[in-house]
């Protein structure tokens, strides 16, 4: 308690000057953050913090890229909404109503008249992040490849970008070599791609400001597509032996009818587990960091002592969680790649 008091005293002048100040004016341990506060002036609404909304706004998708607030006005990148319903409609979110569309309770575009979801191919925040990160990856890898084209790797060590990218690419390449049979070269580009793409987007996701901050790898659609790529690559390249193991494994006769069911089920469970693992890990990480940050704002109204000490605690935890997320970003990219690699290896198994 004494320590907390000292910390809050130290933080007092700092806190007084920034946005906590008006909360201190209220000066009571009154309501929880969810309960409505008395309307006090223009900025009073800011004191009310809906943590759930903040978090969902950060981890979800939007039709515009909200970057920050500047002098009370939101700074956002307007993005084109593309909707296919009796033809293609392109508009920005501000003009949605004019085009006969509105947002539903999940923040998705729906037909204002019928309330139905159209085919929505909008360039949302996530799609823009996807385009940017994919372009970044494309440029980085092509530049790396250009180094190898222009230099004789036999005579000089890679420098700059090539030196940075080579260990990552070769790590995955070696992984492919160890897990897949002799035709690993066919699959190594896919695994490199998946690894670098997930890694890049995981890190961009932790970055709290533009062009990072989109929760791409914590989005189930993204991870589902990645897992489906792996699923199709695995099952379209399955050997005779692989399919025999699924449909006609060497088991006692009474297990014969059961095994194919289990094996087929497990074949479909693999991409699902890949999807959920990456999605849930990244999502959980984002939610934890955002929660830590939100604690600062929630505690603002509980007076200098509590809010000051909790700020210290949440900043420390936030730093810890950010560091942890960096680790998790790498681990999850690595795990997804390793599992894809192992699944491909299993599918390429040969008769012993």
């Amino acid at each position, binding site marked *: 308690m004494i320590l907390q008091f000292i910390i809050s005293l130290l933080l007092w002048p700092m806190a007084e000057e920034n946005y906590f100040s008006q909360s201190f004016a209220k000066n009571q341990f009154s309501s929880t953050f969810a309960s409505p506060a008395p309307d006090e002036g223009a900025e009073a609404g800011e004191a009310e913090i809906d943590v759930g909304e903040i978090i969902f706004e950060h981890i979800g998708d939007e039709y515009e890229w909200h970057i920050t607030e500047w002098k009370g006005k939101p700074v956002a990148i307007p993005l084109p909404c593309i909707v296919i319903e009796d033809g293609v409609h392109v508009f920005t979110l501000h003009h949605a109503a004019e085009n006969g569309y509105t947002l539903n309770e*999940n923040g998705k575009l729906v037909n204002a008249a019928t309330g139905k979801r159209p085919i*929505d191919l909008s360039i949302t925040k996530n799609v823009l992040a996807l385009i940017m990160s994919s372009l970044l990856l494309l440029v980085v890898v092509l530049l*790396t*490849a250009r180094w190898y084209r222009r230099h004789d790797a036999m005579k000089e060590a890679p420098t700059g970008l090539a030196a940075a990218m080579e260990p990552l690419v070769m790590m995955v390449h070696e992984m492919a070599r160890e897990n897949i049979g002799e035709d690993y070269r066919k699959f190594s580009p896919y695994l490199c*791609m998946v690894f670098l793409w997930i890694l890049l987007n995981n890190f961009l996701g932790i970055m709290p400001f533009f062009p990072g901050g989109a929760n791409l790898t914590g989005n189930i*659609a993204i991870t589902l*597509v990645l897992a489906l790529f792996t699923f199709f690559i695995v099952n379209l390249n399955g050997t005779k032996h692989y399919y025999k193991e699924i449909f006609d494994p060497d088991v006692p006769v009474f297990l014969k009818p059961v095994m194919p069911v289990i094996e087929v089920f497990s074949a479909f469970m693999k991409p699902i587990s890949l999807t959920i693992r990456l999605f849930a890990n990244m999502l959980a990480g984002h939610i934890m960091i955002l929660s830590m940050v939100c604690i600062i704002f929630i505690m603002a109204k509980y007076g200098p002592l509590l809010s000051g000490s909790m700020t210290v605690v949440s900043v420390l935890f936030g730093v810890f969680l950010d560091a942890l997320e960096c680790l998790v970003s790498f681990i999850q990219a690595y795990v997804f790649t390793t599992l894809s690699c192992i699944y491909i290896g299993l599918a390429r198994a040969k008769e012993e």
Partner: protein
Amino acid sequence: MSLVTPDFGLLFWMVVIFGLVFFLLAKFGFPVITDMVDKRSAKIAQSLKDADEIEARMASWKAEQAQMLEATRKEQSLMLREATETKARIVADAKAQAQAEADKILSDAKARIEAEKESALRDVRKEIALLSVQVAEKVLRHELSDESSQRAFIDQLVDETSQAQMRS
């Protein structure tokens, strides 16, 4: 629920963009890098193997060299010993030969001296015989200078001869 329901638009764009980037990188990106690095790894492995081989060869060379050096040293000492022996033998031989020569010269000299002595003795003896004959001649001549003595001598000789005939 929107968190766990995949959004169609995002699915669509993800497939398109990821697929496109994957296609481009699988064609122009990763194989270039991995092929080059694989080639380099192969070269490094080969170089290491070569280096090992060279090292082994160097070691064998060194061993061979040491062996040769050892052999040379042995040969050298052998030669030295042989040379010493030869020297000793030559000296001994020379000594023996000199001794033999000396002996021979000595014995030759002795023999010649003996022979000289012999011949000298013979000469002396001959001389003495001659001298004695001459002396005897002179003595005889002197003794038989007068008639009576000649007679006496002749008689004596006749006596002796007759005595010898009678006896025979």
